[in-house]
């Protein structure tokens, strides 16, 4: 049996020492401007680090190991990049200045150099590419295509052209944007969004360290790595994972086609849900709760959406049923029975849900990238990597918590921390206000 990725020792490990989450409103307002000097310095250090990374590459090819001094230099850059990013993305409050802070609230611990395989070193940049792409999607996001310009055709006629750029992910950037508003209002960062940013920074540090040959261990995207600092409060909409990691290559190869009947069915179901959602809104406004029948119908839809998305993204193994019944699928959603809801929160539900939907959209981009990576991996190996699978599950969990919030299945706000299992004591999320520890 393969070791649980959460228990495997990691040479590059994120450390978070900021439990109070206090933020200075003044520095939050001007955070990006304040960060300009350190970002310039980070850029200069980055150039040097990449040159040293090239020397590291030669060293690994020649002697299978990076010299201590070079390792320390690049490790210092990775730590500094993490600290500056944490400051920019509001995961930390103290100014990072121009050198690595030994006790900065968000930091990475990097193990001393060890021997690395020469073959792994030779193809490092190629091997690191998927991890770097995923780190980018988790952090600032990916974008494709220029935004516009002009061209002259072969016939000589000049015309304007516009490419509709598309983007994927950028989960940490969106979380930081939402945290910016929250911190301005409350003087502290939202815990869930901070944990999501920290997780993204931790993965980014692993990917960068791997690419620059600080370690030969491939980055792990398992959200379990976020557990030392992140927590998952009890939420009325919870993910349950009982699925295996094995995959039939044939069903993986044709996964998109096999999902076609489900895609058609969920589109039809969505039309009905649109009307049911409106009915639930009126009912909740009038009675302070969603009637049992409507709740059951909407809950089945959200659960079915999880099953279909998990199957389509190769995160789930088996072909799901069409009814969204609880307990029928390996990647499942547990939804609590209906409870009384605040009429005020119900009245403004759509507007309140917009930040969550923005973050859900960003995490949807990450999930799509995860699906792409998992598809290739499963096609070659006949199984899916646990870390990527769990990251996909975490993304889907947030998306469906956002759907459940919008569809009035709960008035508890979605929780952004990319954690799948609650701690043993399962701390209750503050209910006052329900948008409280948002994101």
């Amino acid at each position: 049996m393969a070791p649980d990725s959460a228990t495997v020792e990691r040479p590059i490990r994120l450390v978070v020492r900021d439990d109070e989450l206090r933020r200075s409103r003044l520095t939050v307002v001007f955070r990006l401007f304040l960060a300009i000097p350190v970002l310039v310095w980070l850029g200069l250090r980055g150039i040097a680090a990449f040159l040293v990374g090239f020397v590291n590459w030669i060293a690994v090819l020649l002697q299978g190991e990076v010299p201590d001094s070079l390792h320390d230099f690049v490790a210092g850059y990775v730590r500094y990049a993490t600290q500056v990013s944490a400051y920019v993305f509001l995961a930390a409050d103290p100014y990072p200045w121009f050198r690595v802070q030994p006790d900065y609230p968000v930091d990475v611990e990097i193990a001393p150099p060890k021997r690395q395989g020469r073959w792994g070193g030779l193809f490092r940049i190629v091997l690191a590419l998927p991890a770097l792409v995923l780190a980018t999607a988790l952090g600032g996001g990916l974008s494709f295509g220029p935004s516009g310009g002009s061209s002259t055709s072969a016939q000589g006629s000049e015309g304007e052209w516009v490419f509709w750029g598309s983007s994927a992910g950028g989960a940490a950037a969106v979380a930081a944007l939402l945290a910016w508003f929250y911190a301005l209002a409350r003087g502290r960062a939202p815990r869930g969004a901070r944990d999501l940013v920290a997780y993204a920074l931790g993965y980014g540090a692993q990917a960068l360290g791997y690419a620059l040959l600080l370690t030969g261990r491939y980055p792990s995207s398992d959200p379990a790595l976020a557990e030392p600092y992140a927590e998952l409060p009890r939420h009325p909409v919870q993910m349950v994972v009982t699925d295996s990691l094995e995959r039939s290559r044939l069903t993986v190869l044709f996964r998109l086609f096999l999902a076609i009947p489900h895609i058609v069915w969920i589109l039809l179901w969505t039309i009905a849900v649109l009307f049911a959602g409106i009915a639930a809104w009126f009912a909740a406004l009038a009675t302070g709760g969603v009637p049992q029948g409507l709740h059951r119908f909407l809950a089945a839809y959200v659960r079915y959406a999880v099953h279909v998305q998990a199957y389509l993204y190769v995160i789930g193994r088996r072909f799901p049923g069409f009814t969204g019944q609880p307990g029928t699928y390996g990647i499942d959603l547990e939804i609590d029975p209906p409870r009384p809801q605040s009429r005020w929160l119900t009245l403004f539900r759509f507007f309140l849900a917009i930040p969550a939907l923005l973050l859900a959209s960003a995490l949807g981009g990450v999930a799509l990238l995860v699906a792409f990576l998992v598809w290739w991996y499963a096609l070659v190996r006949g199984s899916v990597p646990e870390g990527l699978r769990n990251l996909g599950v975490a993304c889907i969990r947030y998306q469906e918590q956002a759907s459940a919030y919008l569809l009035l299945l709960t008035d508890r706000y979605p929780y952004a921390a990319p954690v799948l299992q609650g701690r043993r004591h399962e701390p209750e999320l503050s209910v006052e206000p329900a948008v409280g520890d948002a994101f």
Partner: protein
Amino acid sequence: MLLYPTAVPDGLSLPSVDVDATFGARLVARAERYERFLYVDWALAQVALLVTLVLYARKGATFTRESAAGPLGTGMLLGMLGLAIVWLVGLPFGLVALWWQRRYEVEDMGYLEWIYSDWAVLAAEFLAICVALVIVMGLARRLGERWWLPGAAVFVAIGALFTFATPYLDFTTRPLEDKALLAAQTRYERDLGLPDVPVRVEDVSDDTEQANAYAYGIGPSRRVVFWDTMLRDPFTESEQKVVLAHELSHHSQDHLPEGIGWFALFAIPGAWILMRATRVRGGMGAPEAVPLALLVVVLLQLASAPAANAISRRMEAEADWKALQVTRDPASLEKLMVGLSETSLGDPAPPGWAGLLLGTHPSLADRVAMARAWAERNQP
């Protein structure tokens, strides 16, 4: 015998045609070489398909462990997987055929483009097989072994609906703008007793050199479509008019409704055979029967191909005859056949077995013979 009458006179004897003299010995030899390879490729593809389906019928039920759905959903999964395997197995044969067609400059499409362009069709087939299985399995689970009669009726109804609705789902063609052809269309429609039938053009010349035209739709949805390759050299305006008359004749002779009638005659015994054959796997209500059902359906299609092709050839011959009656231009029909052989490299006189299994149209030589037979009867 409602489906059998034809406008082709009883006892019409077709004169023999010297294909070398009519089509040119070089073209005939080239077309034979070209077609021979495709016949072999087709035959090997059929063997591979049958072997695959036999294996899938025996082992396919193991894929039930990949499903968390109920019996209907699991049946759909097995049906789609069967289709996926069939597509995968057919892929190399299709690519080899494309290579051969490109070598002879009949097709221009790239290999990757060919695979990608096939995906939309494949997606539609996945959906279609799901719908078909939901109907059959749903009826079988409700009616037991009596599902075959209502099942066949439902499929005939779907076939009719599909034939009727398909023209309305066409967003890729454009209206025909050739004034001479449009004027001829009005005249032919009057002679054939047809209302105005829209004639449209499909742009395929970027992908293929082959020329074609077809008639589809029923009643108000009737259409005629020309490939743009048919509206350029080497085809003259007179030849294009013959094609137009031929396609309009399909509508005037009600060939599409007749086709649905024939489908009904095949579907009813076919559904009964399917019901009997799948008994060994628990009947069509059980998902485990689906892989076997796929094999049975393919075998039925292969077995019925000679009869279906004979019916199709009879309709095409009738459309040729009606086209000759309205255009009164057998010489153009003859030249058209030579042109089709040049652009599509069709063998003017294919081997008997190929005509039996693949011949949806009379051979080019037979169509030339019909033009000559018409001329003999109708011209001074």
